[in-house]
């Protein structure tokens, strides 16, 4: 049966700034930069529109940002606060659709309203209601856009940023995109932007005029992406994407850049536990865990740990994640965030193992995990955490000496 999709994209421009200003009204009067104050080589986490207009950008060195916008107030990021604010936004959306997708405390939220019109009315009306509630209750006003795909909804939000709304009807996608600059297309690599520039292509409509074959010549395998994207063709599901298909992803942003071993290992272990709980919920097991570390200077490192037999046991996942950490963490530079990916998933077999565990141990471990999951379901993900003693890692890294006050200052 024909079903036209209706997707709402909510976006709170400069989410961290909006949350900080919501908590402290005095911050509304001046440009605001959010960056870790204690970090030696701090970079900008987020900035207000005024600071942006002065040339401040995300990931820019704080010292440089301060030079560009000397009157800006600088505050330290409060990641937990942003996460809680994001949860409040999600709570208001959940009432209208079970199918939604959100970033990690970044103010982006996609909601698939397809098929809900008889219950809640047209999608623009739902978007307006949610925005009104979020504005009244939280004091932040998200941009909203309605379109038949995630891609077009995201571009529409970018068009109206920092405030406003946009409705693009099904069948109007190509006409809507055609006059827009190519820089508004999401997912472009830097070299692709340069290539478009060299080809003197400034508008999305100019890409849409080229055939698939013509686009393959400059962009190779990405030719199809340009062909579909420039025409507004995007069948990506909301709430699906990578997670639904083959991966579970988690992010942890450190409030301040850190190279404290115990806090990094604690964060990685917590993500592994979260993954374990969600895998058990979905009746799945994982065979590989990857970890991406992002350093405060913007460089990153990715390593992984895998096993032959899949597992969803917290202890096993934690050991895999810590092994990946051990392999990835090779520099002395402080860490900004880490990103954990569980892939190579498979369904958990209901077949019991005959030999892998002593029969008297198996129920104890399973019962414990079951009890933890029950508590988390009732009281939230942070309702209970499994305690563990994290040994000091015998890192093979020659560059990573034990932290002392002396070499900390030299970092």
């Amino acid at each position, binding site marked *: 049966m024909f079903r*036209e999709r209706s997707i709402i994209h909510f976006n709170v421009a400069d989410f961290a700034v909006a949350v900080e200003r919501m908590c402290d009204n005095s911050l509304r009067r001046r440009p605001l930069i959010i960056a870790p104050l204690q970090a030696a080589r701090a970079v900008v986490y987020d900035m207000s529109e005024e600071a942006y207009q002065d040339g401040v950008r995300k990931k820019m060195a704080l010292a440089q940002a301060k030079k560009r916008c000397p009157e800006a107030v600088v505050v330290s990021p409060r990641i937990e606060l942003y996460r809680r604010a994001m949860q409040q936004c999600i709570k208001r959306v959940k009432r209208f659709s079970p199918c939604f997708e959100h970033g990690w405390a970044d103010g982006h939220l996609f909601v698939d309203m397809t098929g809900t*019109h008889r219950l*809640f009315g047209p999608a*623009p*009306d739902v978007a307006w209601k949610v925005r009104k509630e979020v504005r009244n209750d939280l004091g932040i006003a998200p941009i909203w856009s309605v379109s*038949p795909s995630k891609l077009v909804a995201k571009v529409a939000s970018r068009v109206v940023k920092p405030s406003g709304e946009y409705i693009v*009807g*099904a*069948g109007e996608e190509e006409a809507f995109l055609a006059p827009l600059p190519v820089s508004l297309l999401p997912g472009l690599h830097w070299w692709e932007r340069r290539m478009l520039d060299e080809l003197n292509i400034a508008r999305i409509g100019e890409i849409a005029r080229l055939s698939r074959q013509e686009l393959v010549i400059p962009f190779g395998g990405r030719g199809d992406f340009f062909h579909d994207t420039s025409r507004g063709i995007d069948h990506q599901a909301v709430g699906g994407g990578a997670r639904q298909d083959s991966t579970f992803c988690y992010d942890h942003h450190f409030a301040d850049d850190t190279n404290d071993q115990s806090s990094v290992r604690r964060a990685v272990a917590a993500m592994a536990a979260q993954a374990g709980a969600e895998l058990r919920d979905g009746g799945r097991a994982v065979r590989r865990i990857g970890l991406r570390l992002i350093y405060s200077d913007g460089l990153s490192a990715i390593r992984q740990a895998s096993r032959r037999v899949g597992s969803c046991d917290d202890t096993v996942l934690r050991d895999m994640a810590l092994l990946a950490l051990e392999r990835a963490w090779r520099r002395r530079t402080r860490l900004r965030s880490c990103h954990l990916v569980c892939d190579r998933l498979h369904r958990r077999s209901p077949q019991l193992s005959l030999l892998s565990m002593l029969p008297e141990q198996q129920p104890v471990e399973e019962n414990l995990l079951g009890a933890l999951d029950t508590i988390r379901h009732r009281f939230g993900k942070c309702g209970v955490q499994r305690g563990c003693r994290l040994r000091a890692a015998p890192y093979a890294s020659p560059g990573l000496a034990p932290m002392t006050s002396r070499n900390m200052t030299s970092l």
Partner: protein
Amino acid sequence: MFTPPSVGRLAVGGAGCPLLVGTCGYSYAEWRDCGFYPATSRSADMLGLYMRFFPIVELNYTWYQMPRAEAVQRMVTRVPADFRFAAKLTRTLTHERSTEWRSELHRYRQGIAPLGERLATVLIQLPPDFDRSEAHRYYLAGILDGLQGLPVAVEFRHASWAVDQVYGELERRGVTLVAVDAPAIPSLFPSLDVVTNSDFFYVRFHGRNLRGWQSSNMQKKFDYDYQAAELQEWVAGPLARMASHSSRGYVFFNNHVRGQAPRNASLLQKLLQTRMAEDERCSGSAQ
């Protein structure tokens, strides 16, 4: 099943006032479910299908978002020259008023500019909390001044505006007072057939779902199916009276739920055609 009536002007009353019947909005997924639009039609096709049934539409998306000239231009090119639009004023000027309303109004005028001759009127629908306080009177006067040169209709939702002084001022400004058919709620602006602008009158049928009106759910609020007898009362009474004082009339159905609006609009068109045929027969036999 919907049977397309002949599209054109319908006349009521002896004066032969042209009457254009349409609906509030045209892009509803549920109109596909109820058979008004073919099951495979896309949103972009809906206006083209809609205009086969009705000669005018009330644009309600302009309430949700500030109209953009390029999008309006694209829409205008898809309709014939005699098709008309009533454009609702954006919510940031009616329901979420801010201190920057002057610039918003300027943007609005720019946005609807491509409608040109096709613009039947700008509809200012004011919220229920917009009472006749001094501040609100000044604000409304400012909005009307800002829309000078455009045909304008005002719908009040607060009963305090139902006074002769208001009708007099609207008449002086050449602004149409919107007549409504809605549930009888004391605080709501009453259903009146006062004509304040001889150029055109404007009627909105919201439905008479009292319980739905009091809920915050739009799907309940506008869930009402008018019976032929209820519409016949309007044809014989208020519509005929208003038509005798105006040179044109616009009638819109807002009960969009389950495709009731297009169904009722078609029914009204038929009733008006019957009435017109009867009038012609009477005048023929009198001669």
